């Protein structure tokens, strides 16, 4: 299964400077895919999830154009060739 992660600018230093990361790994859910991403780039984990394994409050993950907050969160299913975007929310001051 091939997945593509789109890495936001602020996190690229933790992904060898890449804007996209391709992962070849059998994954059923976003959580599986993220685990595969941490395996390659472990420092991304604490920037995206808190220490309880929950998605940080102001971070959104999209599969294609769909925000996983509306599709089952980290349990959202993914498919081969899914494009997963990690995006900071539009919030703050």
């Amino acid at each position, binding site marked *: 299964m091939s997945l593509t992660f789109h890495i936001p*600018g*602020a*996190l*690229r*230093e*933790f992904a*060898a*400077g*890449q*804007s996209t990361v391709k992962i070849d790994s059998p994954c059923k859910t976003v959580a599986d895919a993220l685990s595969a991403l941490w395996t390659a*780039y*472990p*420092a991304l*984990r*604490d*920037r*995206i999830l*808190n*220490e*309880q394994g*929950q998605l*940080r409050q*102001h*971070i959104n993950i999209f599969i294609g154009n769909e925000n996983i907050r509306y599709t089952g969160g980290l349990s959202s299913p993914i498919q081969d060739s899914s494009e997963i975007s990690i995006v*900071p*929310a539009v919030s*703050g001051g």
Partner: protein
Amino acid sequence: MIGQVLGHCRITAKIGEGGMGVVYRAYDELLHRDVAVKVVKKGAGLDASSSQNLLQEARASSSLSHPNICAIHEVGETEGDLYIVMELVEGKSLYTMSAGTGLPPESVLRYGVQIASALSRAHDRGIIHRDLKTANIVATPEGLVKVLDFGLARRMGGGVLEALTMSFSAVQGASSVSGTLPYMAPEILRGESVDARGDLWALGVVLYEMASGRLPFEGRTGFEISTAIMREMPKPLGPPVPPGLWAIIQRCLAKEPLQRYQRASEVQAALEAVQSGAIVSPNVAPDQDQPGPPKMTTMHSVRHAQVKKGDLLLLIGTTKGAFILRSNAQRARWEIGGPYFHGHAVYALAYDDRAGQHRIWASTSSYWGTLLRSSPDFGKSWTNPQEAPIRFPADTGTSLKNIWQITLGPADEPNLLYCGVEPAALFETRDAGETWTLVRGLFDHPHRPRWLPGNGGLALHSIVLDPANKQRMYIAISSGGVYRTEDGGSTWTAQNRGIRAVFMPDHYPEFGQCVHKIAMHPSRPGRLFLQNHWGLYRSDDAAENWTDIANGVPSDFGFPIVMHPHNPDCVYIIPVDSDEFRCSCEGRLRVYRTRNAGATWDPLARGLPQKQAYETILRDAMTTDSLDPAGIYFGTRSGQLFGSRDEGKTWQRILEGLPSIVCVRTAVVDGGSASTVRSSTTTRSDVTKSAPSHKTHRSSSRTKTKKK
């Protein structure tokens, strides 16, 4: 031409010439300023229609107002020649500056951000540059970038472009200006319509050239260059170019416009993200050859204060980053370093010179979580941990929101530190920050479920160590109150007798008070002062009982409370109007000082704004230094930093225009001595170390404490 008048500009000198035009220095006799005048010669490839278009577009571009865009003041014709009067920019072109091996990454980022900002403004106004290149970007000696010739390229042939884009690099000896072909996007070469993304491609070329000193697409002929642009990938840039910058350049140079950044503001944001600390230093990263991010991040693109032995430092935390200011003992002028951690809130800072080190600790908080970081070299490089070092254990079900306080252990335990965090908890490290442990005795306290968050969250914001008793420590929580341990943190008791909680049915509960800050003088550890959410208190019995000392202050609502460094009877506060209106009382910014432990308070206002000054000073945004006479410093939510070098008699505004200031700390740099901790960060050692180091002390015996 010299001496002629074009419009109202008298030509004074010729400063460059290209194939199609001449650039002159001129004096605007109407507005009395020096300007540059570019004259495009007759027959320079312009027919009548093109001339009119050039004039129209130059006029449109003259509406652009941006600090990084060379302003066009006037356009006109003289005897058939077109002339353009523009801002005189004295500096070197990036073409000249990049020649050879390129510029340091920090310069590439600094200039790149400015160029992207200029493009963003122009694109927002519908103006596309169309001929962006290093030859028409000038950097002044102050580091300000000016992009020349916006909008002038639309109707022009290449030769005319060359003339028009000739800049002051000619003065600097660059007699020829490179053509525009190496900067042209593939879609231009394909003859397709061009939009703003063509400028972003050119920006990628400019960044590459600045970073390496060479063009990304080269060739001996125009055909070879065109082929390279259309088909080849640029040669990768390795260290010292940081990976983040290389990634940005690659995206700018995507062959298909849709694969590039779509807006200049995106490029600007990406460059700023790298500036903020995403730059890998090959000199610092100890495991550079290993996969994964560096353990240290070098702040290449940040201006650093050049710290020397004997300097006084001001560490400033704001909601959008940190600053390090330095001065000498006179404290008259300040050199500013920063901002560090662009866009990250820095609520806690501390300077640690125990065991001969010079370490600045900082908490950073953003979308991406909260980290405790430290710098061994006054901000030039910072730890960049893969995992957040402070984290709640899984069984707590709790996650870290912010680090509010960093407190050093005693001088003889240089690896011991404490952090107070939100949600309210205390962490400690005994290995200088490698591993942190949740202080369970406090976290498991039966009161904890009934603590309530204040306006700023449920924060443990104050940690006070007893320098005479290593087993005793005080903490304060908003809203939970004061707690004390007598056994090194295993057990804790609420110590709030006499402190009001106006928002509770019982105004004097055992716990639950919204304490804003507590302070202790190390020479008198049994006595504490407390600024409450309504209420100003002193305890003379190690927090067993608290006495109201709001004698004559305009309001007993406020946030910070700080001790004079040498006088245990002297305390400073800044009252604000009320809970509802948390601004300086009556629009007058006044510090209040007691020199008799709270029996009376005096306003200190000389030099502070006294009209329409509705300022808020947060709990950690005030501090003192350890010099004599003592310096007092505070920052406002409006981003102003004030200081007094005479113990509060007179004040000066040190800085304004910062983001909201949430933390102010001081430190004296002692040059590596392990003996004396002289920081506004309280340590247990202060009682024995700092007191003898100052020649003059205001003894507590000079003023009699009046107990109520």
